[in-house]
């Protein structure tokens, strides 16, 4: 798979954040909702801060922040445990859904969500998330899926796609040697206890807006006690993918995004297959292109 940019530009010209652009001035201090600091410890180009912002914004919009409890797994995103302004329980690698179960069973009126990566959830804790979904626990499980162990430095996970180069699949993931990726969202959608399942991403503004809607529906499912809700967010990891920072979004859509298809996998008890979602996405894209050809995008939706 090729990821070379057609028009390489020196990185500094694109991402010089060391000083404000000429003429820029502070209008008002910006501190997003439910964050204790604007700073984070992620690498440049990482998608995880965006994904976390998405669900924090939604919690604030829904007005349920003051009864929300997060349960964090182990990965890069663990450092958010110190920066997000939510009561938090730190779990072991893979075990967050069980810990969240204990929290929710003792505090049934609270809003409980996990924060896990693909290594944490799909490798180490696959049984935990499946059983928790099957039990229909009224919690929202959040997967930040970048198809790689980012914290250890770029190793293959159970969601790495065929052909993906990692530090322990140097020539690309070969199914005859490394096996096939697990489409965890599709798997969970099949379980009766799962009320809402969706897969979003944060590789561009449209995707962020769509993902926020998914978080809203997931938290609403929890608030309405409909059962287990699950939001997977495909996140960029240029460091773990060994690519230039600004190529992250494109690499993501060309690799993970082609396999882990974005869309709502289960709504109101109805499962949407990957084929259906893919067809919807193609139709949506075709419509957008048609609108652009007519001179501009329709604003709603």
């Amino acid at each position: 798979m090729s990821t070379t940019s057609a028009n390489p530009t020196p990185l500094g010209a694109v991402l010089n954040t060391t000083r404000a652009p000429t003429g820029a001035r502070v209008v008002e201090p910006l501190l997003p909702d439910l964050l204790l600091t604007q700073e984070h410890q992620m690498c440049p180009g990482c998608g995880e801060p965006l994904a976390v912002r998405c669900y924090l914004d939604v919690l604030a919009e829904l007005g349920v922040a003051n009864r929300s409890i997060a349960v964090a797994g182990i990965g890069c995103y663990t450092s958010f445990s110190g920066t997000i302004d939510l009561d938090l329980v730190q779990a072991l690698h893979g075990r967050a859904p069980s810990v969240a179960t204990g929290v929710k069973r003792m505090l049934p009126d609270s809003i409980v969500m996990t924060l896990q990566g693909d290594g944490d959830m799909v490798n180490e804790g696959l049984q935990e998330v499946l059983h928790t979904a099957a039990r229909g626990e009224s919690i929202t499980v959040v997967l930040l899926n970048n198809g790689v162990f980012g914290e250890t430095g770029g190793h293959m996970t159970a969601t790495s796609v065929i052909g993906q180069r990692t530090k322990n699949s140097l020539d690309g993931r070969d199914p005859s040697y490394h096996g096939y990726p697990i489409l965890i969202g599709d798997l969970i959608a099949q379980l009766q206890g799962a009320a809402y399942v969706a897969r979003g991403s944060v590789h561009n503004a449209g995707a962020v807006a769509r993902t926020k809607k998914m978080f809203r529906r997931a938290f609403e499912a929890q608030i309405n006690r409909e059962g287990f809700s699950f939001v997977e967010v495909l996140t960029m990891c240029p460091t773990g993918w060994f690519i230039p920072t600004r190529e992250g979004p494109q690499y993501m859509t060309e690799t993970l995004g082609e396999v882990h298809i974005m869309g709502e996998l289960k709504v109101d008890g109805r499962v949407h297959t990957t084929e259906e979602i893919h067809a919807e996405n193609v139709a949506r894209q075709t419509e957008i292109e048609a609108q652009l050809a007519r001179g501009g995008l329709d604003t709603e939706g």
Partner: protein
Amino acid sequence: MSLASPTGTPAGRSLMEGSEALVRAAIAAGCRFFAGYPMTPFTEVLEHFARLLPDAGGVCVNAESELEAVGMAWGALATGARAATGSTGQGLSLMQESFSEITLAELPLVIFNMARGQQDYYQATRGGGHGDYRHIVLAPQDVAEGVELVQLAFHLADKWRNPVLIYGDYLLAHTQESISVERIDFAEPLPPKTWAVDGSTSGSGRSKSVTPLGVAKHGQPAMGQEGKAQYGATKIPFMEREVRSESEWLDDAETVIVAFGSPAKFVKYAIKQLRAAGHRIGYVRPITLWPFPYEAVAAAARGPHVQRVGSFELCAGQMIDDVRIGVAGAAPVHFIGGVSTDGSGFGVGRILDVEQVTARVLALHQGVEQPTVPGYETFGYEIQPHQMEPTR
């Protein structure tokens, strides 16, 4: 609130299985969450929690594995609830990673081990998990003491914000005894659980986190992982003050036996019979396996007439290490127990018999060879010719 069996008069005693008595004691102590996975001889503890907790306003989850069980208890504890999990030692092996980290997170977990014999002494007192931690381990000799120690376990767990393990076995879990489960009010007050999370501080800028990692909320001083480990290490000497043991007949004892749990009750009875026949034998029974009663064992071993110390255990000999540390060379220390089997797999078996125990204690006292452990003649290892000499 009456917690006696429905078949008995509320304030009186009733015949009750050990498992049920332990569970009623846990509920009397305020336990409101339990998660477990069936495994003999622990299974009935899970059954009684599943039956009794909902009516007490609690929750019992039939976890899909021991990994899930301990994780669920972890979450319940983080909300400030009194919570427990349990299994046999085999199932607890699966939980060890969480035990290590729950201890670092300072969560007051109570663990029930209805063990297969006494093979889990090391697991209980040394831990199978990583890192520097200790769990207080309480080993009741019978159901009546179990009812007290289970309630003490919840109290000590909160007092020290540290896990406490109840070491039981097949006999404790399954013996029917005439029992009255009364709530025990411990005299010392416990501080409020201001660290517990309920979501109410989310979004206030003062949100809380319960973590084993030493990560703090932004702007707060963070311990870091090593700092958290140091903090835990410096707590250990204070917890050692909770040591408990029972001893008897040491003034004139020539032989001292150390034993714990259900087997200790057999040992005490055997010694009583032997003393009636004129044999000067005494005993020390550790009630806390950690902290181990080193000073009580040391004092016993330094008695004016003591010539030998025996460790009676239903395993290959694990507690004997602590007995040796306590005796510290004051007298020779002998192992007089063994792996006990009746083919059931529950590890109590044929040694746990008054005649057997008496014969083993008397053999040590008289300085003669120990009787063969029943079954060893069939299963005992036969050394091979190439193994006769140590490799030089």
